[in-house]
């Protein structure tokens, strides 16, 4: 449909991809290098991104040495940075591959782009990692609004536009894991312990649910987790999370807000005994 028919003629240049590959968990890693032709300057055709280059490699799996290899295994979904799947480490920093435009990252002939799998999650294969821990941690904090079932019981609690704006921003978290990859306190667990640091994404989600009228009925449970092992106090305030977040969620605010809540929670608990 929307195909290239621009007035400016597209030109092609070569971009070199260095990709860290792995055949599976515990099978070691190796580097493979690919030269990918990238069109640029053709208005209307849309610029290439890391995903379109990986797709090109899938159709032409040959390294620069001329050796035939397998297509790169990687996770992706929406390709518009709302699903969070294609998170990987690009040129040393974690981000989504879909929004990584080649014209920005490698504007000149022969420029190099390095791709690695996220290091804080177990690798399944190549750039594809297993982020189950993140979803399990959302269970740990009871990340839901405890409604009385799905039958019609009228509207939910009213909400001011200000609260809505705060919650909306937090709700944009797509569980991509950028904040966790960039966090010096979040470390790889090959076997999930259920005690590891939950990281900024999950802390922010705890705040999200605590801010909701009905969601706040589980606030105590969430703050128990948040003030336990792997909770908010494991944060080291490096604040990389907020910098790495592609959705610009105010994660450090969430951490401080949960810090404040746990302070009150524990003091209250100390005196009430509950």
């Amino acid at each position: 449909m929307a195909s290239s028919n621009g007035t400016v003629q597209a030109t092609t240049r070569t971009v070199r991809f260095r990709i860290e590959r792995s055949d599976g968990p515990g099978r070691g890693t190796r580097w493979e290098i690919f030269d990918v032709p990238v069109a640029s300057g053709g208005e209307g055709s849309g610029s290439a991104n890391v995903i379109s280059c990986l797709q090109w490699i899938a159709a032409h799996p040959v390294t620069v040495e001329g050796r035939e290899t397998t297509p790169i295994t990687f996770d992706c979904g929406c390709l518009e940075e709302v699903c969070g799947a294609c998170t990987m480490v690009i040129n040393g920093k974690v981000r989504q591959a879909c929004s990584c435009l080649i014209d920005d990252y490698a504007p000149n002939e022969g420029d190099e782009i390095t791709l690695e799998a996220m290091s804080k999650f177990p690798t399944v294969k190549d750039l594809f990692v297993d982020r189950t821990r993140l979803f399990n941690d959302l269970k740990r904090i009871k990340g839901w609004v405890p409604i009385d079932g799905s039958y019609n019981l009228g509207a939910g609690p009213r909400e001011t536009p200000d609260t809505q704006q705060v919650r909306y921003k937090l709700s944009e978290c797509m569980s991509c894991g950028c904040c966790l990859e960039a966090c010096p306190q979040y470390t790889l667990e090959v076997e999930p312990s259920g005690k590891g640091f939950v990281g900024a994404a999950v802390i922010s989600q705890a705040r999200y649910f605590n801010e909701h009228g009905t969601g706040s009925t589980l606030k105590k449970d969430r703050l128990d987790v948040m003030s336990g092992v792997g909770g908010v106090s494991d944060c080291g305030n490096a604040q990389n999370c907020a910098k790495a977040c592609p959705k610009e969620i105010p994660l450090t605010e969430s951490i401080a807000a949960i810090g404040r809540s746990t302070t009150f929670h524990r003091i209250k608990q100390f005196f009430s005994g509950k």
Partner: protein
Amino acid sequence: MNTVNENESFLERHHYLLRRLHSLSGIVPIGTFLMIHLTTNSSIVWGLMDGKYPNMHGGAATYQHEVNFIHSLPLLLLIEIFGLWLPIAFHAGLGVVYALSGSNNVRRYKYQANWRYALQRLSGYIGVLFLFYHVATLRWGWTFLMPGNTKWDSEFAASTMALALRGETDGFTAVGMAVALFYMVGVSLLVFHMANGVWTAAITWGLTVTETAQKRWGYVCAGLGAGLMAAAWASVIGFATLDYDKAREAEEYIGGGHGSQILEAENESVRHSGAAGSEAVR
């Protein structure tokens, strides 16, 4: 969550309390002491300016005066053990455990806050080594670690401190130079550690939630850090460049149990709350 789980270690069961005590201990008593200590020590420089002790090394005299006051406190050893050494051991011990739970990544994420995260841990490691050296040599008298086997003497506080930093009365021995540099690095890191720690503590406890509040508090902490850094450097440089003989002269004048005859003269010229302390010493 609060049920006792046998598989949980002591650290896990009291995770939150320990974390918060760790944070608190850094501010009270350790940070508070650091502020007092650096103010006192920097009197080696500001004592020069205040003109209270004309005709002698005012810095050494003021400093000796302060030291005398501290050494006049009752149960000093107990205060030191419970107010300082144990809290520092607690803060440092847990600090190392916590620091080991992370792995810094400033090489990849070169953000200012991330540098501070890394530096906070580095300053903790080096700072605790420095403190150990500092207390062991000056307080516990481990003279074999001192340049020129100096023994610090609270009655000749400034002059023996100068020796401790230099190894000789005039100029520096090689070891002395190393110790002086170690002091410069050590106190700088500790000051940073405290200022940055106060900043992060405000987030940890939930005092500063919004980005704006964190930024504002950041300026306050930077100001605090700058002030303390000035005091710290003044102290080290002050002692390291001290005129040994003049200091000795001033110390003898103030007296840490010596030269009682001078005290009357002092009492006349000094309108100073610490004066009572000097008397107690006598």
